[in-house]
């Protein structure tokens, strides 16, 4: 009997291996029927972590949890009215409602299994409706496949089963990123390294001359030689500092180029990131990355490629000279080096997390800025200036507190290092001094004096390498955040290059399910077909999912289940640029750029001819008001279109959409925020625009939908009615009710107005 589930396990759809402890009970309950799919839950019915199991066959389901009586229950579909996921908070139940109205909890799970159980619930509903089992199993299989499609190389979840892992393909590690940016400027950098090696070598000359002065020239009172030496020294200085200037210039140039490349790349990358990324990431933190993190990173790169090389060279040079001058003393002066190495490791470990914490604080500040400065009008209108200041201060103080801790470590650290290194010089003074006092032949006074100078020069590179771990940790924190963007998955353009010749405008949604996050399901099994040229109204209460349907159609979000077709081609297989260029989208909140009106309209078709732009403005009923502005088409708009009324912005955005001559028009609440006169203007514009194009119109005012051939009524993420105005009126359902309510309130409003006029 045990075999039933065992043999099936390979072909069985399941999210995890079936726990073996459940096998026996499962087989008993199955009584020989074979399961089609399984969900292994991660909670017990009492809400504690633990495993549970749901098995679904063609006519029954089985739930196993130790808390069920006898460890499990079996229910026949025919005894169930419905089975669905009850989302709670951080966890969910799969419940069945029996025909006599009783609720039975089947299994419990965290949000990790909600998608699957949703699919299972849909499956049961479809089977009960008499749909084909194999077909429905296929539908559920997609959900399972989605769950299982991980990149074999990196283990990340893929957008669809056969997709390339963009994460893997474009993956860059920190080192290769650094190299990538340094490479184009490698010549300049090498020249500058050579220059610095020369200047460093020259810096090593003066102490040696000191030795000559003390030991030979001055005791021998050789005036002529003194002058030669001084002139030579002058030449050395001159060369050293002029080369130094040249090097600084080259370095800055290379640095600027690196930073410019970094900024451009991150910005470019940010353009192609999906909406999902922007839903989760604050604008402030993105701006922070492009602005200040790039500087951090560039600083570090230069440090590594330039100073590190120079300092290393200097260190080696000094060691060599010291060894040649007196190897015993040289060994003494190296004593602190291992201590320094150990200390840097220790401090580096401490600093890493601190810089990461600091970064979070810094980015919170940017977030607040980018949030409040553009909304200054809101702040003022609620006289909330002082609160805004306080909140901002709190975040800055928070940052300051964190920086204080970091500052302690990062200030103690280099000084501790210097201390140890300086102690090394005491040793040299002592040992060398006693040599000289005891007239040890090994050491002259001149050698000792120059030795001390070399030793003090030696501290600079040691200090440098010690503090490198500080700036390394700091740069690392920034780099990680930059990598967040550079390595983020861009929008998938699976159908790149696949541009169909003709775009008729037939649109089909097939079993589309979608949620922004797992705590709430937004679209539920949405299916509909729109014929080319149809004008479709989407109505529904606020928050029902109207804009979300459009967002999916626009491919702003790709991780929905089910399929969307345009002209019978899956939209994921069409070139994204081509696809979007065929759609004119007038958004719920029209946004303009800080630019002239002309450019704002021409935005959709760069290089558009003036006639075209004026024509588009005309169609959108915008030309008249534009031409009355003193600067007409040259009027520069403020941020987000400041300087225009809502209705004017709306018409500009219609003009913008029209200009690109799309095959598919979408209006999301184009007339929601305007008076009835402007509404008429916009409505006229819309009527002109939609001719011959498949059109979606979302509208709260149902009167604007009179021209629609078809109306979709959305309620809580489901399409509950679909048909023409007359059909839906005859149906006397939700649409009918909405019409009734609106015409009633319109009548009331009209009566009121009439009263006021009297």
């Amino acid at each position, binding site marked *: 009997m045990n075999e039933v589930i065992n043999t099936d396990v390979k072909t069985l759809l399941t999210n995890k291996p079936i726990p073996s402890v459940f096998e026996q009970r499962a087989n008993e309950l199955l009584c020989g029927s074979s399961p089609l799919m399984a969900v292994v839950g991660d909670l017990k019915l009492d809400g504690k972590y633990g495993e549970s199991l749901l098995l679904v066959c063609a006519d029954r389901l089985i739930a196993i949890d130790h808390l069920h009586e006898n460890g499990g229950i079996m229910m026949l579909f025919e005894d169930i009215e419905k089975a669905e996921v009850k989302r709670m908070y951080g966890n969910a139940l799969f419940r069945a409602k029996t025909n006599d109205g009783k609720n039975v909890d089947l299994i419990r799970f965290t*949000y990790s299994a909600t998608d699957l159980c949703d699919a299972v619930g849909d499956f049961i509903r479809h089977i009960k409706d008499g749909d084909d089992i194999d077909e429905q199993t296929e539908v559920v299989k997609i959900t399972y496949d989605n769950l299982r499609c991980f990149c074999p190389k990196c*283990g990340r979840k893929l957008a669809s089963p056969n997709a390339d892992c963009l994460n893997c393909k474009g993956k860059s590690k920190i080192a290769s990123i650094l190299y990538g940016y340094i490479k184009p400027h490698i010549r300049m950098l090498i020249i500058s390294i050579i220059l610095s090696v020369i200047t460093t070598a020259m810096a090593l000359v003066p102490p040696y001359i000191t030795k000559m002065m003390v030991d030979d020239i001055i005791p021998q009172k050789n005036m002529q030689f003194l002058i030669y030496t001084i002139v030579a020294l002058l030449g050395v200085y001159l060369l050293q500092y002029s080369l130094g200037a040249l090097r600084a210039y080259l370095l800055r140039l290379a640095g600027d180029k690196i930073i410019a490349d970094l900024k451009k790349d991150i910005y470019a990358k940010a353009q192609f990131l999906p909406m999902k990324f922007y839903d989760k990431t604050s604008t402030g933190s993105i701006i922070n990355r492009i602005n200040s993190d790039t500087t951090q990173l560039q600083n570090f790169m230069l440090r590594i490629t330039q100073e590190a090389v120079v300092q290393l060279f200097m260190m080696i040079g000094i060691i060599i000279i010291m060894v040649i001058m007196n190897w015993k003393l040289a060994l003494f002066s190296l004593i602190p080096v291992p201590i320094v190495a150990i200390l840097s490791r220790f401090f580096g470990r401490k600093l890493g997390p601190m810089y990461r914490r600091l970064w979070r604080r810094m980015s919170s500040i940017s977030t607040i800025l980018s949030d409040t400065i553009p909304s200054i009008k809101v702040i003022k209108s609620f006289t909330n200036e002082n609160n805004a200041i306080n909140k901002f201060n709190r975040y800055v103080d928070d940052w300051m507190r964190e920086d204080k801790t970091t500052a302690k470590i990062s200030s103690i650290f280099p000084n501790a290092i210097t201390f140890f290194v300086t102690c090394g010089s005491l040793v040299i003074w002592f040992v060398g001094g006693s040599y000289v006092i005891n007239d040890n032949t090994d050491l002259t006074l001149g050698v000792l004096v120059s030795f001390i100078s070399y030793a003090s020069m030696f501290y600079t590179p040691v200090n440098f390498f010690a503090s490198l771990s500080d700036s390394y940790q700091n740069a690392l924190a920034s780099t990680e955040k930059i990598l967040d963007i550079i390595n983020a998955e861009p929008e998938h353009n699976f159908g790149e290059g696949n541009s169909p010749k003709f775009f008729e405008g037939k649109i089909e949604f097939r079993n589309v399910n979608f949620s922004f996050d*797992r705590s709430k399901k937004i679209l539920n099994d949405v299916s509909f077909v729109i014929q080319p040229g149809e004008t479709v109204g989407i109505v529904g209460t606020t928050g029902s999912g109207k804009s979300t349907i459009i967002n999916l159609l626009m491919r702003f979000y790709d991780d929905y289940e089910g399929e969307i077709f345009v002209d019978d081609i899956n939209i994921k297989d069409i070139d994204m640029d081509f696809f979007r260029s065929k759609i004119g989208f007038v958004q719920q909140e029209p946004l303009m750029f800080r630019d002239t009106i002309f450019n704002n309209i021409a935005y959709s078709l760069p290089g558009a001819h003036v006639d075209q732009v004026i024509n588009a403005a005309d169609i959108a009923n915008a030309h008249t008001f534009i031409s009355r502005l003193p600067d007409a088409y040259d009027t520069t708009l403020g941020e987000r279109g400041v300087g225009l009324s809502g209705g004017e912005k709306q018409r500009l955005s219609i003009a913008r959409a029209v200009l690109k001559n799309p095959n598919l028009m979408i209006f999301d609440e184009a007339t929601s925020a305007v008076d009835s006169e402007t509404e008429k203007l916009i409505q006229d514009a819309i009527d002109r625009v939609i001719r011959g194009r498949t059109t979606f119109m979302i509208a709260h005012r149902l009167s604007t939908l009179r021209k629609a051939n078809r109306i979709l009524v959305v309620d809580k993420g489901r399409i509950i009615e679909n048909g023409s105005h007359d059909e839906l009126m005859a149906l006397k359902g939700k649409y009918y009710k909405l019409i009734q309510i609106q015409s009633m309130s319109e009548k009331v409003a009209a009566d009121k107005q009439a009263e006021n006029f009297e």
Partner: protein
Amino acid sequence: MPRNFVDENTVKLTVNDKIYIDVELYTGEKFTMLEPHRLFPVSGLMKYISLLDEEGNEQMIIRDIERLMPESKEALLNCLNERYMIPKITRLIKRTEKFEIWMWTVDTDRGEFTFEIINSYQSIKILYDGRILIKDGNDNRYEIPDLYALDKRSIKLILPDV
């Protein structure tokens, strides 16, 4: 529509089917199968509980759980405890990274569990009262009531992320 704030002293709540409660007002008016929702699930666990009917329409609001009669309070709390699952992390057992996804194995008041954190910067939030809220890759939530009350090792592992 005026909000219906009920008087905590005169209302009687009883659990119906785990996550639903039945309500009886002193007027004798009865409601069944209401679903309690915290209006402030993060900042005010014991305050402002909205009771929704099966359609999702709010029937009433209870301002303060503490002021309910003991049995009613217990019923409501049981019901809320069933619904709201924010395990409190008591120990971080393991924290490993693979492909920039962090796997945390933790001990919680609901048992041991392993979850993944996709982006620690976005998924871990520190509240001003010192609580740390964590959202995992599946949008489940967890809470660390007081980081510094954990053992040393857990603190050390978590600190870089906050």
